[in-house]
């Protein structure tokens, strides 16, 4: 799907026009491609106080072939190239007074940040602070990072990861994700990791090699992109959609070397049929992506039961029933299984005319949070992804004005692409993402809705 405005604003004529009129100039985002280096330039790593993660992160970056720079000295001197990432280890924070050192590190570094740069802050969770002052300092980072994200330009993003004591071993996967092109449209987000047992190191190029992944709603849109990214990362994809979409589903499966399974996920026997299929054909499943979703918009006062029920059935009840059946079926959901549920920005911010949809999508967020401990017991994870404005056939049919406004009211000033949602889901599905559990990751370019 083309973004005509972004392309125009980046043309030489468009640059002149948009500058003179003071119009936004949405950047062409740095997106992941296999074989790409983690970062297109060096990273600056600094800390506020005595951080415990700085060395781990620096080592991780060096392993990934990234040149690690020291922070600018007091007189502003720096060593060479402009950084592609600025990483602050804020685990040393004790009081709000310490925050000034965060400012001292970030300001000069961010000033020099390249286009499509990354700002990443690592901190302890406020809930585990020793004192109210420490909790305040940690929570302050939340406001700080969200504001930085809004100030950044040229496709750069800022995100925050809370790392509780004991969860240090879990950070490699999220840190790598947020620095890489996979997180192009994830901006202004705050997430937590937890302690988890990590499986043996995986193949960087094919992190999902040997995995069997089910993707529902895979015939088109975001689901088709998820299937493609999963296959690119090495998974065998079982692409699921309703039989009426079977021709496009077959095309998707053939394109990516996966298999097509025509199944209405709301059918009474859908969980059983899916489980039998997985058992018979693959002996089990590693990854399940609940992506299928529908909208049946109407103001609440005008909404009939059919609209309400169909949205609930597809968007929420089917996810619950299939997940429960997988948990109950002996040996089908394999060790280190990953379940990713597609929620929506509407589930966080609400949306006029979408009471049914927003309720179902908010329900998904509650569901993954509640299930996370059960999954952790099985060395598995369950997370949600909440897309913002994603450019698909569905949005292409929206009226021009609504679509243009919808796609611009975020910090990256553009709509996301299906691949952005897909990359986030593929990341959550990696064996190395064992420490990310019960989270809802927004893929919305830091949308102003529900922020």
């Amino acid at each position, binding site marked *: 799907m083309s973004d005509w405005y972004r392309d125009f604003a980046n043309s030489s004529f468009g640059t002149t026009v948009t500058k003179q009129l003071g119009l936004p100039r949405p950047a062409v985002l740095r997106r992941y491609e296999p074989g790409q280096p983690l970062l297109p330039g060096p990273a600056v790593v600094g800390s506020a106080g005595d951080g415990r993660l700085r060395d781990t992160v620096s080592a991780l970056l060096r392993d990934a072939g990234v040149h690690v720079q020291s922070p600018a000295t007091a007189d502003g001197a720096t060593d060479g190239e402009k950084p592609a990432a600025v990483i602050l280890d804020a685990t040393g924070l004790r009081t709000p007074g310490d925050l000034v050192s965060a400012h001292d590190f970030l300001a000069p570094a961010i000033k020099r940040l390249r286009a499509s740069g990354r700002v990443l802050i690592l901190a302890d969770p406020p809930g585990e602070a020793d004192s109210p002052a420490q909790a305040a300092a940690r929570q302050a980072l939340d406001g700080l990072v969200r504001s930085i994200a809004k100030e950044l330009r040229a496709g750069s993003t800022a995100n925050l990861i809370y790392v509780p004591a004991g969860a240090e071993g879990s950070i490699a996967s999220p840190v790598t994700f947020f620095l890489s092109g996979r997180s192009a449209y994830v901006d202004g987000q705050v997430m937590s990791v937890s302690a988890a047992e990590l499986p043996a190191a995986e193949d960087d190029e094919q992190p999902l090699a040997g995995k069997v992944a089910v993707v529902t709603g895979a015939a088109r849109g975001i689901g088709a992109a998820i299937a493609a990214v999963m296959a690119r990362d090495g998974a*065998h994809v079982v692409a699921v959609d309703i*039989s*009426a*979409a*079977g*021709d496009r*589903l*077959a*095309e998707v*499966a*053939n394109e990516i*070397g*996966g*298999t*097509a*399974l*025509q*199944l*209405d996920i709301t*059918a009474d*026997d859908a969980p059983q*049929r899916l489980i039998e299929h997985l058992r*018979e*054909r*693959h*002996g089990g499943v590693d990854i399940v992506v609940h992506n299928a979703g529908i909208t049946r918009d109407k103001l609440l006062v005008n909404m009939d039961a059919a609209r309400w029920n169909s949205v609930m059935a597809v968007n929420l009840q089917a996810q619950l029933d299939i997940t429960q059946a997988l948990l109950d079926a002996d040996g089908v959901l394999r060790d280190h299984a990953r379940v990713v549920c597609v929620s929506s920005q509407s589930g966080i911010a609400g949306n006029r005319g979408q009471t049914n949809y927003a309720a179902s999508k908010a329900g998904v967020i509650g569901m993954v949070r509640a299930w996370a401990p059960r999954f952790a017991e099985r060395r598995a994870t369950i997370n949600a992804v909440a897309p913002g404005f994603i450019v698909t056939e569905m949005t292409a049919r929206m009226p021009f004005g609504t679509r243009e406004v919808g796609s611009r009211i975020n910090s990256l000033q553009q709509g996301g692409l299906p691949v952005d949602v897909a990359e986030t889901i593929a990341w959550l599905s990696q064996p190395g993402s064992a420490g990310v559990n019960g989270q809802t990751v927004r893929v919305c370019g830091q949308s102003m809705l529900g922020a």
Partner: protein
Amino acid sequence: MATTRSADVRRAAIVGGNRIPFARSNSAYAQASNQDMLTATLDGLIARFGLQGKRLGEVVAGAVLKHSRDFNLTRESVLGSRLSATTPAYDVQQACGTGLEAAILVANKIALGQIESGIAGGVDTTSDAPLAVGDDLRRVLISLNNAKTLQDRLKALARIRPGQLVPEIPRNAEPRTGLAMGDHAAITAKEWEIGREEQDELAVRSHSNMAAAYDRGFFDDLVTPFLGLARDNNLRPDSSVEKLATLKPVFGKGEGATMTAANSTPLTDGASAVLLASDEWAAEEGLPVLAHLVDAQTAAVDYVHGGEGLLMAPVYAMPVMLARNGLTLQDFDFYEIHEAFASTVLATLKAWEDPDFCKSKLGLDAPLGAIDRAKLNVNGSSLAAGHPFAATGGRIVAQLAKQLHEAGPGKRGLISICAAGGQGVVAILES
């Protein structure tokens, strides 16, 4: 003399199938060619079983109505599909028996160990059917093509007469009798005293059985939509005996005519394909085995001079196959008798029940007997789906294999298909 089955050949497994929804002539697939439909059907099968880039033992398919440019129809379809281009293919044609005959051919090669896997299929379009020109015009055109000078060309063109410009549209008629297949069936219906109401009842049951099967998702892994069609567009879930009773007969003459547009299959476009394999290959690929093809038999009758009905050959094939396998007609859990016409199904069953016929024509001491009608065409057949000639066999084989698989191991199913030219093909599947 009755032959016996050789015990040391392995049985070919039926892994699964795919078809596109069948469409009445000149409707949804009016612009699609046989190659378009067969290729789409193969691609749906490939997606279902993850066969992208694979080299199979062979792909065998055919069409009854075929353009001369489609001389290599199946191979061309394979080349256009996602299979490896190194998968060999060939065309077969045995009228409405094509699809089942193709499955028998592939199964036999698997049984003999000559191949490990293969696809059998069939396709037909009555919308994009080849048009032939009359012999007179054909001769003029050939001499025009051979003419060297402008003058010769003009001379050749001058021989064209307006009457020659009307193309010969292929008809569903027997070359040796000039009778439409329906007219032949009407003769048999009259001979066997097949009533109007029982034909309409059979048609209604076919529609309601198939509609129910669609509704319960039975066809989810047997059909892939094509050109905007997700279900057979001949299917009438709300058809009733009362409604059908109002229709005028279209075949047969006068008072006794019973065959209408509803209890006869319409001209239809569509394609089907079945994946067959050795058990070993299926296991290696992690693919299911729905059923095995146990045995098959073809027969032909002399409908021109021999006094037998055009579509009665399966009646003759059946006792031969049953005897070879030590089975009676009642030893089956499902019967799939192709509904070319409701009257054909009913005449076939009646013949097997008739002691005189079984003795004089089939040489049997006792009739084959009646079957339990509740086991007949349980998920609908050709009266509901329609009948794209060469595609019907593949539809039935895949559908029956799935029924047997659902019913559990050790279940037996029987297929009976009549074909133009006085031929018939029957087969046994077992889960």
